[in-house]
């Protein structure tokens, strides 16, 4: 297998005989952000006591009827609009029938033939250019409960707190071609939904997970190969590992003249391999039919229009604006719009200080510090206002870039305002020409020998003098001014 180069797409699987292209489609399950469940009034809060967020509807008591949560419908429409997708004003809830211990109804309420959202598209920024990924559909469905296998050696425990929470299943077209594109796609979906406030995208808590469809074909072939579906992968890294393993497995089968069975597979994260889930073979016969407990969902066009008008600025638009208004390059803009909170922080700082310098310092020192402390931007020990003051102090020449790094460190540790730190520690840059001339004069007097050598032609010594000035001033001498004065004095 060959890795990716930066400027050209060249991901493929190298077999003994041929090179193979990898075709990937994703079914992403995104948990809808809502207070209560899709068809009941129980809480959706993560991490509650087992079975305390369960109503008689979620536990499928006989005779209980589902009533749809209007906010979940709006969230699905918002997400559809964010994916530039067609909103279907008529959609139908169906029953998907299968048996499992954490599915008390014996069926999942989902949407089969008539989903609430139809075709759309998502743009990815890849190192080799921009790439469009088609969205096939988005539909609303219920989540299942949770089976816990490790609390008892001979039994499985079932917690229904998650049972009935609304999910959006977002199905992509088979447009993805590499693990890197899958990474970019998931991050983009997550970013869009977090901007919209329709899904928190928290993969650790299972708010975002995916079934991954993988097939391979010889490069140049038009026809898709037989695909396998890898179920329920809950991290981007595992998705990438599962795809690499699965594609290699399929190539090996093809090259040894064997057939690929269309099947559901499971990714074993410990062994880093996928294996067949034979027990689910029958489960594909889901016998979908319209749920007689629920009437078709009809959306008023005015509701869709209102939601459209109230959408926030999304990452693609914001990126364009950052490039245009703030003079950022594509890379900077991409990083700074990736999370709504990051872009808000940036704009708050850039509004009162230098735009380019803010980007550089945010993506350098600020992100490095947050990374190291494992914090996200909203938990930053440095407020946007203080950060802006620091940037302004650099821009105005009050402190040098080197001193600014020291001030930054102190800000992180103490939470103090940069002005206060600079003043109390006397860190202001020495920019008074008279003071500097005096200091430089003394240094040159002390090192008369070196001055003579310099004047005799050893010009390399200039750096040595600069170093001496910096040392004597505690790094506070204005570098530009120092250069000018030194040049003037050494000419004499």
């Amino acid at each position, binding site marked *: 297998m060959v890795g990716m180069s930066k400027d050209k797409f060249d991901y493929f699987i190298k077999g003994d005989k041929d090179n193979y292209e990898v075709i990937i489609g994703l079914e992403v399950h995104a948990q809808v952000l*809502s*207070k*209560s469940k899709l068809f*009941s*009034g*129980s*809480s959706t809060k993560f991490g509650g*006591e*087992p*079975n*305390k*967020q*369960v*109503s*008689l*509807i979620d*536990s499928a008591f006989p005779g209980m009827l589902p*009533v*749809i*949560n*209007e*906010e*979940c*419908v709006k969230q699905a429409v918002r997400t559809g609009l964010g994916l530039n997708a067609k909103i279907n004003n008529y959609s*139908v809830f169906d029953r998907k*029938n299968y*048996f*499992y*211990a954490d599915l008390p109804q014996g069926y999942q309420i989902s949407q089969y033939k008539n989903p609430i959202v139809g075709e759309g598209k998502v743009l990815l920024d890849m190192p080799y250019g921009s790439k469009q990924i088609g969205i096939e559909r988005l539909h609303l469905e219920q989540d299942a409960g949770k*089976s*816990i*296998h490790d*609390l*008892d050696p*001979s*039994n*499985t*425990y*079932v*917690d*229904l707190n998650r049972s009935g929470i609304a999910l959006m299943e977002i199905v992509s077209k088979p447009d993805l071609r590499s693990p890197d594109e899958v990474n970019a796609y998931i991050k983009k979906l997550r970013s869009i939904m977090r901007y919209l406030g329709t899904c928190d995208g928290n993969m650790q808590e299972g708010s975002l997970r995916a079934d991954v469809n993988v097939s391979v074909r010889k490069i140049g072939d038009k026809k898709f190969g037989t695909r396998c579906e890898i179920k329920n992968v809950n991290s981007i890294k595992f998705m990438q590992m599962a795809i690499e393993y699965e594609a290699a497995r399929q190539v090996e089968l093809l090259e040894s003249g064997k057939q690929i069975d269309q099947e559901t597979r*499971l990714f074993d994260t410990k062994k880093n391999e996928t294996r067949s*889930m034979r*027990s689910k073979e*029958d489960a594909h*016969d889901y*016998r979908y039919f*319209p749920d*007689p407990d*629920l*009437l*078709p*969902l*009809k959306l008023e066009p005015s509701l869709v229009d209102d939601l459209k008008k109230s959408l926030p600025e999304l990452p693609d638009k914001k990126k364009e604006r950052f490039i245009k208004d703030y003079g950022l390059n594509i890379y900077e803009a991409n990083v700074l719009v990736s999370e709504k909170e990051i872009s808000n922080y940036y704009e708050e700082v850039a509004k009162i200080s230098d735009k380019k310098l803010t980007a550089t310092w945010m993506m350098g020192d600020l992100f490095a510090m947050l990374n190291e402390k494992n914090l996200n931007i909203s938990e930053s020990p440095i407020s946007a206002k203080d950060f802006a003051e620091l940037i302004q102090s650099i821009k105005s020449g009050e402190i040098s870039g080197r001193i600014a790094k020291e001030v930054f460190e102190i800000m992180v540790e103490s939470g103090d305002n940069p002005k206060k730190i600079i003043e109390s520690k006397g860190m202001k840059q020495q920019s008074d020409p008279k003071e500097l001339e005096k200091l430089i004069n003394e240094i040159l007097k002390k090192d008369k020998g070196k001055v003579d050598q310099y004047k005799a032609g050893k010009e390399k010594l200039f750096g040595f003098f600069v170093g001496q000035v910096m040392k004597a001033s505690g790094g506070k001498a204005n570098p530009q001014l120092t250069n000018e004065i030194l040049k003037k004095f050494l000419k004499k």
Partner: protein
Amino acid sequence: MVIDKEKIIHVSKLARISLDKKKSEALAKDLSSIFKFIEQLNELNTDKIEPLSSILNEPLRSRQDLISDGKIRDKVLKNSPKKNEEFFVVPKVIE
């Protein structure tokens, strides 16, 4: 449509209903005649008619996003064949 014994066995397996041989044969016969009766509908031309999901011509009723239920663990667990204080307990299922 003829419903044969194999179809009956397949569907009963999916629905987790156990049937003996005799019962399967009887059911196949009954269902075949029921389907035959229903298939009279196929004589009508429905080319230009949208499938109907419900016969009620009413909008779907919805509710506001409020927490109004839950916190009834004892009630929820009460009828399960096996349980402990917090969970439903079922035979080990592992993929």
